[in-house]
């Protein structure tokens, strides 16, 4: 079944070509995008099934065997990320179609939206499946270029301003990544990750540390790790709601995925563990303090997004199987919840006419559906039992306690404080936007189109449903973490046998 592996990359790209040709036929564009992305979800689910039952799947592109050719590797982690991310893209696509129809854009929508959205998906899936560093770089570039276009959609003054910051920061991180790739190739003569596993071990210690540091720096910017995170709350909130939602759900997580992949596969042994843990603590605490100070829901959520990246780093920094498994579970939870919250915020903006907290009020009475759509994922984000946020944090706390070091306990304390402050931040949104009397300037009847509520509701249900499937999901995360730490399985899968 190896022919399934390239499909999540190839199908969206073909979809891009088709939707570009159909630039004047919005209805056909919508059909193609929906079909392609739904097919991607199905293929990703199949990949997850096969990688769980039969082990990693590898495709050597063009038949050139590794390390000469390019390999696409689907192991459990990659397949799991594919399933979650492609599900998000479908839901957000339906939401954006609903928004376009409700805004009367049905006849004159932006014809670049669908092709760009599909390119973004292809970039994300390519980054997850990449088996060599340069292909990972290309995946990053594909998704970044698409995100530049989506962020500056329409070219309003505010979006251009935010877009400039975002583009320049992203370009800088790409340059750092590319420099690291050049140096790694010069030092080892290969870029296939499975080949690097043995070649990197032969390098002097100092050189390895420098390469590791450069990769961490590049991925840290993309994942919005403090102190490299200030670009994110600056740029995300200005984009249209569905775009912000898909960015928040996927883009930073691709950075986290790259950190997990390189830290476990290429640079095992946890030499950067202490740095990662300290950064995790700072990211969590500084991020959430930023969120508490905000008076706009979109900006507040952007800060919680940064803050919760800290939890993921916490799991990675522990370098134990339980820590990694919890981090993987938390990624799945966080992608779902953060996307849902931004979609719900889009609905709030639609009903209340604004996302500024001082211009909202009384939404709970005006629109009970909206209240549920916001409250459930918000509580989930804060980690209220029995939601998946609680389970993920519990796993991280257990992994930290098992580690037992001073730093681990500090992180547990920081994590719990962050969780409480998250609850405070979302409760503040709830108090100000959903209770109180309605603000006089709010529109009397804001429409809530069914096509926008539907996908949001589906994601809320999915986020809550993560609790139900937490056992099997955590098992998959645990197996994936075991595979990551073992390393030999990945190498053998790429080279088709033990070396």
């Amino acid at each position: 079944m190896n022919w399934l592996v390239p499909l999540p990359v190839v199908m969206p790209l073909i979809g891009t070509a088709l939707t570009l040709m159909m630039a004047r036929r919005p209805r056909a564009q919508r059909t193609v995008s929906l079909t392609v992305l739904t097919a991607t979800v199905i293929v990703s689910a199949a990949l997850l099934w096969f990688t769980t039952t039969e082990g990693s799947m590898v495709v050597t592109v063009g038949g050139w065997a590794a390390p000469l050719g390019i390999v696409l590797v689907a192991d459990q982690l990659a397949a799991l990320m594919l399933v979650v991310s492609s599900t998000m893209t479908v839901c957000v696509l339906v939401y954006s179609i609903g928004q376009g129809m409700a805004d009367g854009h049905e006849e004159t929508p932006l014809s670049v939206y669908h092709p760009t959205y599909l390119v973004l998906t292809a970039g994300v899936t390519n980054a997850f499946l990449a088996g060599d560093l340069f292909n990972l770089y290309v995946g990053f570039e594909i998704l970044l270029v698409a995100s530049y276009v989506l962020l500056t959609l329409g070219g309003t003054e505010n979006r251009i301003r935010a877009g400039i910051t975002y583009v320049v920061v992203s370009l800088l991180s790409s340059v750092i990544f590319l420099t690291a790739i050049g140096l790694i190739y010069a030092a080892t003569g290969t870029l296939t990750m499975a080949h690097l596993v043995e070649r990197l071990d032969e390098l002097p210690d100092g050189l390895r540390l420098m390469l590791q540091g450069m990769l961490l720096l590049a991925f840290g910017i993309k994942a919005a790790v403090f102190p490299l995170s200030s670009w994110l709350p600056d740029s995300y909130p200005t984009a249209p709601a569905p775009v912000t939602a898909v960015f928040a759900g996927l883009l930073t997580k691709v950075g986290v995925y790259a950190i997990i992949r390189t830290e476990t596969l290429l640079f095992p042994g946890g030499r950067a563990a202490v740095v990662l843990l300290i950064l995790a603590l700072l990211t969590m605490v500084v991020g959430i303090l930023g969120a508490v100070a905000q008076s706009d829901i979109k900006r507040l959520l952007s800060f919680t997004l940064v803050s919760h990246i800290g939890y993921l780093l916490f799991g990675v920094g522990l370098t134990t199987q339980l820590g990694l498994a919890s981090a993987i579970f938390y990624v799945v939870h966080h992608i779902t919840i953060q996307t849902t919250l931004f979609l719900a915020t889009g609905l709030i903006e639609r009903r209340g006419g604004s996302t500024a907290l001082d211009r909202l009020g009384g939404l709970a009475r005006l629109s009970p559906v909206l209240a549920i759509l916001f409250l459930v994922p918000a509580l989930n984000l804060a980690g209220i039992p029995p939601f998946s946020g609680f389970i993920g944090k519990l796993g991280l706390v257990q992994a930290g306690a098992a580690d037992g070091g001073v730093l681990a306990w500090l992180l547990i304390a920081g994590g719990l404080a962050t969780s409480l402050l998250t609850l405070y931040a979302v409760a503040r949104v709830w108090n100000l936007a959903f209770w109180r009397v309605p603000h006089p300037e709010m529109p009397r009847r804001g429409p809530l189109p069914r096509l926008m509520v539907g996908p949001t509701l589906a994601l809320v249900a999915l986020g809550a449903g993560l609790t139900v499937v937490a056992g099997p999901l955590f098992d998959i995360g645990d197996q994936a973490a075991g595979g990551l730490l073992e390393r030999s399985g990945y190498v053998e899968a790429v080279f088709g046998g033990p070396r």
Partner: protein
Amino acid sequence: MTPNLVYVVIVGVLFTAGIAMLLERSLTRVLMGMILLGNGVNLLILLGGHAGAPPIVGAAPGEEMADPLPQIMILTAIVITLGMTAFLLALAYRSSAMAGHDEVQDDVEDRRIMRLAETDQGSGTEDDR
């Protein structure tokens, strides 16, 4: 290519100049910095492989051939840099058309919070109840 001091120095100069330009406020200068950095990286990648005869089967014995991989990577990187340059130029143009200049602006909300911090007030939302 054996690391040759001239190339190493050129890479260093390109990086230094690129980073210096990157710290400017005007987007056009930032763009120049990006181009310099991009070229610096490309040259750096080229230094990673060894030079020699064209890598075509039968053209030369295997050991004397040039390493084609860095060249392929540079080609890819050049294409990406070209696309990004075009996009950044469009951004700079749009920015100057909208705002009359192409300077990178501070965030609106950041400026608001900064002003509030100077006068030592809260964010104001709670007072409206």
